[in-house]
């Protein structure tokens, strides 16, 4: 098995035993490259991403992640995973630079490398002048770029982003798209859950998630 892939094997998931299944017998392997997961709201995209990160435990089946093809655990989350949530990605009482340092130091980066990396990613995402600001004083676009910088600063093997460009203007989306594409190259895995068509141009694979669990098909009828 290729250790550079994120593999979902016969995954089943529901939030409580009495609740309906969100995912049922889902299998897919995400090879290195950028993968867009698209689908209706509530079809289970975000759940899939959290299962891939190890933030949720599958009710059935298993997830395999780099570098050893094992289930995602705290060590994977610290060192090999960069995750961007839809919101609430930054610690409100730490400056942008501190946010980045905290994430990368948990990944095992230390000393001068820590500061160098933080500066590099803040510069690449156009945030170098805001490095000492607190997240609360930034605009939505700046916060989202900072979240991506925070995820990328530890230079993870797997990058997972949940709606990273929702509500952002074209310029911010372009900056983010470029940073992601350049970083992922051909050896790392990036999974993005999005409705945003502007991201399709950086994708190596687009997965229509509705075919797995068309939860809200009734909306189509309404349209």
């Amino acid at each position, binding site marked *: 098995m290729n250790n550079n892939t994120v593999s979902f094997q016969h995954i089943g998931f529901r939030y409580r035993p009495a609740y309906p299944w969100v995912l049922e017998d889902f299998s897919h392997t995400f090879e290195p490259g950028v993968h867009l997961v698209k689908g209706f709201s509530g079809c289970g995209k*975000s759940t899939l991403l959290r299962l891939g*990160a190890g*933030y*949720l*435990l599958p009710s059935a089946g298993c997830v395999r992640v780099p570098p050893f093809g094992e289930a995602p655990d705290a060590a994977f989350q*610290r060192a090999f995973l960069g995750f961007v949530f839809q919101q609430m990605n930054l*610690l409100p009482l730490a400056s942008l630079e501190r946010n980045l*340092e905290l994430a990368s130091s948990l*990944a095992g980066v230390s000393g001068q490398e*820590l500061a160098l990396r933080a500066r590099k990613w803040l510069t690449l995402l156009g945030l170098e002048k805001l490095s000492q600001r607190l997240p609360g004083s930034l605009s939505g676009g700046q916060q989202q770029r900072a979240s991506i910088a925070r995820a990328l600063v530890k230079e993870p093997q797997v990058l997972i982003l949940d709606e990273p460009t929702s509500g952002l203007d074209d310029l911010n989306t372009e900056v983010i798209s470029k940073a992601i594409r350049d970083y992922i190259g051909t050896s790392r895995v990036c999974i993005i859950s999005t409705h945003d068509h502007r991201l399709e141009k950086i994708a190596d694979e687009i997965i229509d998630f509705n075919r797995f669990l068309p939860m809200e098909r009734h909306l189509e009828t309404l349209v």
Partner: protein
Amino acid sequence: MRSSTLIAFYLWKDTWKRWFEQPGSVLARASVTVLTVGLATLLLVAFSLLERSLKQQLESFGLSSVMINESFSPGHSSAMTRENRFSHMQDWGQWILLRQLYISARLSDGVYISIYSYGKDALLPLAPLLNSENPCILVAPRMPERLTVDVEIEGHTFQAVTRRPLAFLTPVFTNQVLLVPENRFPLHEAMGCVYATLLLANPEGPQLPSIEDRVEAIEEVARLDNTQLNIRSSLDLHKKLKALQDNQLRWRLIMAAVVGTVLSLIFGTISLLEFRQNLFIGALLRSFGTPGRTLFLRTLLENIFIANLFAVLSVVLVALMHGTLFKVFQLPREVVRFSLSAYLSKEIALIFLYVNIGACLSTLPVHFALKKPVGEILS
């Protein structure tokens, strides 16, 4: 190491911010701690001081002394002679016999005092008091030693030498008394007297029964002899002390339950509410790979810090207001008098133990809340 420092620093900042934004949560915990610890301190320190006072009384009486008073009048008949009445108890220690006469002596300041006569048998134990020049001794705890003073008995003036009482005589002589040799006042001795017999038990003696058994044996002799004996011993004090210690233990347990339960419930509820308010921050930190135990430790340290800080404050407050507080409850003088050692005693250590158990228990809800997966919180 670097990451631990950064996380610790961030959590420290977060905690301060929360305290400043919601001082009510700190104040609620502070007031609960001050009230419960104050109450526990008040009660347990009072018990400790009462216990100390009783122990002092016991020591001053003599832990194993027994004092037997018996009235004797010329017409009195008894089955046993005084000599053989306690003969089977001779091994218990030293028996000292004194006779309190039915006359009194008048000091130069007009104070009347009792007169005791001592026989040959009492010479040895009383030797440190006696001197060859004047066998009349005025036993006076507060007068200078070896002073010759005039005493008047039945219109006659005698001279006596002042001495402080020996420790073992404290139960017999609570006030000033005059000690005179036997047959100094034969006529008055013949009129009757009160025999004061003091048993100075030897606690290391091989066959010394317990104080209860000793008193019971003496009472039994008195019953057989059809004699009315007035027995004074440390038994009552022992019983009082035992009752006090039982009460003390009961209150310790009650206070442990009150302090521990109240603190754990109040602190636990507040901690859980605050943890839920900061749920996203905690989950975000965990999503980076911050161990859940770090967040748990933060709550634990916060609760321990607040509980101990205000517990110390509460004890200091009670100590500062010691006299006023204890006077309100109309407690004995020995308890009302401030004693620093009472506030550095094991009772206070116990209160701090309860406080810390309560603080630790209060963190349990957070421990369980941390089991919720990050993915369910950040959704």
